[in-house]
């Protein structure tokens, strides 16, 4: 079938694109837009490496057709830092050795942003582990990641309290 026109806002930038309906959001990001921070691991919803936020919610971009997300607001790892300043979640991952070879780290960070936004985990390490269980990493950085999430949540909550005061 012929390509279809879609509009996506990716990391704050509007893109008008023509896409083959078979193209997944993951392949569009990586192959067409050169946003290769989002990784392709399993390509079947099983590893979480392709996690991005769509309209504020984390999903697996490998199981999402780009055409089906026409009009969506997408956040990828490339849009997380403020210029040269790392997002607190990124900084905490570095501080706590939350990534090793780094392949899964973008997905882990996007998933952490989703987890924090969902507000379900709190400071319970077991809830954090369960909440991030859709991100599978063979580098075994899990322990560091839990520490990083706890620290980043604390920092973000402090920043929110300051902003509210």
């Amino acid at each position: 079938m012929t390509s279809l026109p879609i509009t996506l806002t990716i990391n704050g930038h509007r893109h008008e694109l023509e896409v083959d309906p078979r193209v997944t959001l993951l392949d569009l990001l990586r192959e067409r837009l050169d946003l290769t921070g989002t990784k392709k691991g399993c390509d079947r919803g099983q590893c979480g490496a392709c996690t991005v936020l769509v309209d504020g919610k984390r999903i697996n971009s490998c199981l999402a057709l780009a055409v089906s997300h026409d009009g969506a607001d997408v956040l990828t790892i490339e849009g997380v830092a403020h210029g040269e300043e790392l997002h607190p979640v990124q900084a905490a991952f570095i501080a706590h050795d939350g990534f090793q070879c780094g392949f899964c780290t973008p997905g882990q960070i996007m998933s952490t942003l989703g987890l924090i936004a969902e507000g379900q985990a709190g400071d319970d390490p077991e809830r954090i582990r369960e909440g991030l269980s859709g991100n599978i990493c063979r580098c075994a950085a899990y322990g560091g990641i839990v520490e990083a999430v706890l620290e980043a949540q604390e920092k973000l909550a402090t920043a929110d309290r300051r902003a509210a005061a």
Partner: protein
Amino acid sequence: MRDFDYIRPATIPDAIAAAAEPGSAYLAGGTNLLDLMKGGIASPERIVDISRLPELNRIERLDDGGLRIGALVRNADLAHDAAFAKAYPAVAEALLSGASAQLRNAATVGGNLLQRTRCSYFYDTASACNKREPGAGCDALGGENRLHAVLGWSDACIATHPSDFCVPLVALDAVVEIEGKEGRRHVTLAEFHRLPGETPQRENALEPGDLIVAVRLPAEAASFAANARYLKVRERTSYAFAVVSAAAALVVDGGKIRAARLALGGVAAKPWRARSAEAVLLGADANEATFASAANAALADASPSGDNAFKIELARRIVVRALTSALAGTPERLPALPASPFSSAPGARHDA
């Protein structure tokens, strides 16, 4: 992935008309359909994207006290709806025990009911599979089949239905609201999925074009809220399909069971309502001996379909444990590891 036409109808009648054409498939969250298309197991010629149809993403309270859940409500949104989780805790627990947070954010109510089996031979197009290709044979018979069915299977197919969500739903008498070319109709979830018989490719009560518009829970379903649990054993503590699962819901008064609901997952081609076990429970004393008799009744007709005799004993124990957990009371807040027997029951340790 094979080429397909993509359409996004604006109305329900347009969607039904488009999907009634041969070779069409609805797309909701896409988390199962795209997976199957990538594997070459499904290859629709036309994708009818229903993900934005209006009015199907609402949770509505009905005048008779029941609840109507739109087919496009996301699994995560339903589970995290505070009023829903309070009234139907076992359903929320089942939803949160399924897949991962990313998948639950995309997966829909209708899509969860219609997800296909995870039988590995069904997924491997080089294997013979009667469900994929009627008449081809079944490589799971005599194959690697320790996770296959122990109830209701036939020589044509021994696959299980993988949904968690459907297990407490069938226990609570959920009804599927379907719209088709001839209008709307209601089918109980117990009758919605079919056993394989000679036609394992026919998995449910839908006709071409039929759209699931909602799932309804009757008013009575909320009366079990104080004593309802879902329990799921899997090969790791999270992010895996059930080996065996059970939903148990009780109404207990003065030590006697006034009402009981029980269903099993991972054991058959459909979510398995255990009515004979419910009959044992009804009116009996709420204790371990009763629960053991109920478990025996639930599995009385079970038989191994291969290397899975262990599942029968496992299912008995899960039934006893699910009933025991239900009797102990629904936790205030769901445990950190929903539905996991390795979570400290009943969740108190995790409440900050």
